[in-house]
């Protein structure tokens, strides 16, 4: 079905999503699960759709898989319009959240199912099944039924089953959410390894920011049926363009400040201490000098300082987290600021309650929000 070298490509994009919308129900009960989404997913990348439940990420995945048909817009896979095609006619395979292994078939038969449906010769099915079993290290379990293996092993079989027909794209619908923490960490690196070895484009859906940050080449953050921001994990984390993105990923300080000057992609903002610092502007945003904007400062991008403080705060409390300590400061009646101090072994990084401390923000640590 899916020889990776066949068919016309459309630039570097394996998947093109163009102005895609999906509305469930009609009239007053209509629910817009996906709202005019456009997106390009590059060949061979690990792409993550990240967002809370109900944000539309699973709907988008289903539209790519063909389980749902769009209300408007286009899905293009490998340069080919797939509108109207069912899931069995698309060169994509899915790893389901509950794995959806066929309970009446053995592990080997589950893995070989896709090739069997494609009408491949028996020898090829057997050979590929063995290769897939080895790839996910499940050779010893080939003759077992899914009910006779553990959740983590079922997960591996589901992966092998979806990879066996050599799809152009592998869709993963929160595949790790049913595993316990230790197993989830293991499977994260396992997934990365499989993606590197197969070179297949992975589209991964999750609500877990850590999963998204550690595994992805690029992330699209979704909310309310829209993509709010997409980019590399470092871009998303260090330069969130919207409040939702900043809030959803990592811990964040929001401060309302005055914008003093704009120089292209950066701006000068007046911090609570009175001095000005350089901040990064979101792409395409050019606010007027003198206007008020919200800025984001990550807790680890600020440090306690004796001199050249950007602003001062009063220690309200300190929370010890092991690797670091969170210092919660009160800047004014309205503004709070959390600062993260790495624990180096000398003391616990805490400061006495009520003491005044100076805070210095690292260069490049200030990001202006779009809203």
């Amino acid at each position, binding site marked *: *079905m899916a020889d990776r070298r066949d068919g016309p490509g459309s630039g570097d994009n394996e998947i093109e999503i163009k102005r895609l919308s999906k509305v469930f129900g009609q009239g007053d009960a209509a629910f817009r699960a996906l709202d005019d989404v456009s997106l390009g997913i590059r060949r061979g990348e690990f792409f993550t759709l990240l967002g809370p439940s109900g944000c539309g990420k699973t709907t988008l995945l289903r539209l790519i898989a063909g389980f749902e048909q769009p209300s408007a817009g286009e899905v293009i896979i490998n340069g080919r319009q797939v509108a109207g095609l*069912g*899931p*069995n006619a698309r060169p994509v395979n899915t790893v389901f959240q509950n794995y959806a292994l066929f*309970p009446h078939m053995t592990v080997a038969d589950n893995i070989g*199912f896709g090739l069997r449906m*494609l009408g491949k010769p028996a020898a090829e099915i057997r050979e590929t099944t063995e290769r897939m079993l080895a790839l996910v290290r499940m050779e010893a379990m080939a003759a077992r039924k899914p009910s006779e293996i553990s959740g983590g092993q079922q997960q591996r079989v589901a992966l092998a089953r979806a990879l066996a027909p050599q799809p152009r794209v592998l869709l993963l619908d929160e595949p790790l959410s049913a595993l316990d923490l230790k197993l989830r960490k293991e499977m994260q690196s396992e997934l990365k390894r499989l993606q590197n070895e197969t070179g297949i484009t992975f589209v991964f859906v999750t609500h877990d920011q850590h999963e998204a940050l550690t595994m992805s080449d690029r992330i699209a953050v979704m909310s309310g049926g829209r993509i709010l921001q997409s980019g590399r994990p470092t871009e998303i984390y260090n330069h969130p363009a919207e409040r939702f993105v900043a809030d959803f990923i990592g811990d964040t300080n929001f401060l309302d400040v005055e914008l003093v000057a704009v120089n292209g992609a950066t701006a000068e903002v007046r911090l609570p201490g009175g001095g000005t610092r350089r901040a990064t502007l979101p792409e395409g945003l050019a606010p007027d000098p003198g206007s008020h904007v919200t800025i984001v400062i990550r807790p680890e991008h600020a440090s306690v300082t004796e001199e050249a403080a950007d602003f001062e705060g009063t220690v309200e409390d300190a929370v010890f987290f092991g690797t670091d300590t969170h210092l919660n400061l009160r800047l004014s009646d309205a503004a709070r600021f959390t600062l993260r101090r790495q624990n180096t072994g000398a003391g616990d990084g805490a400061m006495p309650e009520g003491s005044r401390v100076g805070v210095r923000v690292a260069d490049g640590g200030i990001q202006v929000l779009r809203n």
Partner: protein
Amino acid sequence: MARARRNFSITALPGFASIAVLTFVLLYVPIATLVVFSFNEAASMSRWQGFSLQWYQAAFENRQVRDVSIRALGLAVTASAIATFAATLAALATTRTAKFPGQTMIYALVNQPLMVPEVVTGTALLIFFAGIKVSTGYTGMGYLVAAHSAFCIPFAYLPIRARLQTMDLTLERAAADLYANHFQTFRYVTLPLLLPGVLAGFMLGFVISLDTVVITEFVKSAGQDTLATYMLGQIRRTVTPEMNAIATLFLLLSAVVVVLFFIVSRKRP
């Protein structure tokens, strides 16, 4: 006190044991009596004279008994097979599609034979089939097959539907995702998983058809007695232990099918 109330058990009610025993006695003593007297040497239903298999022998040698048994079994298998096929399609259509207006209505219509008294169905079929008989001249087993099939559909439908409702819909999605077309999805995934429900539906329909007296009585033409209507006719005249023997065999067959039904429907995917 509070603890005792939380652990409320129906078995602690006064008289529970005696009522339970009485219920079982009422249920099983008549049947046990029937079975015991089928082995009685005498022709009496009340006086035990000694063990004998002569009534079984008499039943086996009775041509009429053989004829009606074969007819009843053939009818039950045919009608139940038709009903199971129809019920499978109905169950798929009422569980595997998006909710559509009138779905509950269809559910009620499929189950209609469960609600309508058998005499009403019987009378209706008698009148309806009489018209067809007159106009076509056909008087064969087709009427009984049709009547029994229709009557068995809800009994076959219920276990199949129950099975489908507990079946994970993503399994069929997964099959489609792995390049199976609609037929292949049904053939390799839905049907194998549905099979226990289908078999259970078939067996339930089989027993119901074997057992149905009222509708058969209304619909049958001359010479179309089934085992059930034959026994009813015999008992109206004289009661001999031969009937006990036949009833006991009947009971055995039902018991076997019911046991099979439980074994099949207990299997979980």
